[in-house]
């Protein structure tokens, strides 16, 4: 009984860290403390699943908020242009490599700690494969974009989208087949919880059509652990 009381503050402390553990933003030391506690405490593990549900739906909710129009960028860069004309500064050339590298940064699987080592390794492999798919898509987007408007805006807003978490056991071949069969491409990710945003159609599908398409994709259990429509 005394031992159990002694453990209570430690358990409360661990429980307060669960949201950050799910998001992968704890220090390694705290993350290991949480992992150990989760392995020994079934109730804590159940509560961690509640946290993960909240996180997935929070991401989904935010994704449905849409994206800003090109007007915001036009206004910003017009203001910058105006300031530059008033106080000219040294211009530098555009570093395409750096630009692409910047996009790849979004694949950094810093949020994978919660998933456990085995799952993390599998998802890291997926991230590498998906980065290739993603970059191919992005390069095409850049070529067709206007000079003053960041290419990512058009590339990430045209078509129909879904949020997906891949099955950690899926192989590279499974993923390749999945993207080929569904004519899908990666737009963004991995994000918290190993969530990716994928383009499932180049057309703006209606809500029902998108739901049907996503439901078909969800049937591919070998590849898809979770999928929902997204804007």
């Amino acid at each position, binding site marked *: 009984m005394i031992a159990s009381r002694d453990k209570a503050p430690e358990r409360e402390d661990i429980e*307060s860290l669960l*949201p*950050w553990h*799910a*998001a992968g*933003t*704890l220090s390694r030391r705290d993350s290991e403390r949480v992992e150990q506690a989760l392995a020994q405490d079934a109730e804590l593990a*159940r*509560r961690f699943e*509640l*946290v993960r*549900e*909240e*996180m*997935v*739906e*929070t*991401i*989904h*909710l*935010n994704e*449905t*908020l*849409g*994206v*800003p*129009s090109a*007007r*915001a*960028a036009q*206004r*910003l*860069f017009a203001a*910058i*242009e105006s*300031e*530059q004309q008033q106080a000219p*500064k*040294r*211009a*530098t050339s555009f*570093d395409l*490599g*750096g*630009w*692409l*590298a*910047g*996009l*790849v*940064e*979004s694949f*950094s699987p*810093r*949020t994978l700690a919660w998933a456990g080592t085995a799952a993390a390794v599998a998802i890291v492999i997926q991230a590498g494969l998906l980065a290739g798919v993603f970059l191919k898509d992005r390069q095409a987007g850049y070529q067709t974009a206007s000079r003053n408007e*960041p*290419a*990512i*805006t058009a590339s990430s807003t045209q078509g129909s989208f879904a949020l997906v978490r891949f099955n950690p056991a899926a192989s590279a071949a499974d993923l390749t087949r999945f993207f080929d069969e569904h004519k899908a491409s990666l737009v963004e990710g991995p994000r*918290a919880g190993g969530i990716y945003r994928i383009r499932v159609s180049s057309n703006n599908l209606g809500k029902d059509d998108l739901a049907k398409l996503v439901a078909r994709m969800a049937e591919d259990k070998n590849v898809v652990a979770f999928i929902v429509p997204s804007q």
Partner: protein
Amino acid sequence: MQATSDEALISRIAAGDKLAMQVLYARHHVRVYRFVLRIVGNSSVAEDLISEVFLDVWRQAGKFEARSAASTWMLAIARFKALSAMRRKPEEELDDDMAGAIEDPSDDPEVVAQKKDKSEILRKCLTALSPDHREIIDLVYYHEKSVEEVAGIVGIPEATVKTRMFYARKKLSELLKAAGVDRGWP
């Protein structure tokens, strides 16, 4: 391939590199926009504000000391501007369409309970949280901010960040229970 860090981009922006600014904007504008939109509830106002946020980044890049992540710095600027705008703008400017997208007061938890999709109920309850609770949940789950980073953005002690997150989640559970979803916690 070595990624160009946000900090390196900001150094280039401080030197007047407009293209580095485009890269930084492309990388962060959607998240900053959504963060602002969740505060002001009006897409047009949110668009104006993100232009102002990134214009501040352009102007103040030379002062950025990299004591926090660039994204944390930008969210702190965005939060300040959004809250200032909320103090300036009357409530009638809330766009009806966006209000519907963000919060649906007519669709209270009891009505939502009739919908069997637990995920949808959870999302509805997330929108029904207070602005403070919504903000902290967004920062932790969607913007992937650590305890220390949230403290820096919101301007509260780290211990308060943890307790506010706890009470936000507790309130969420209460809303879910009222909507017929008992999670057995807290």
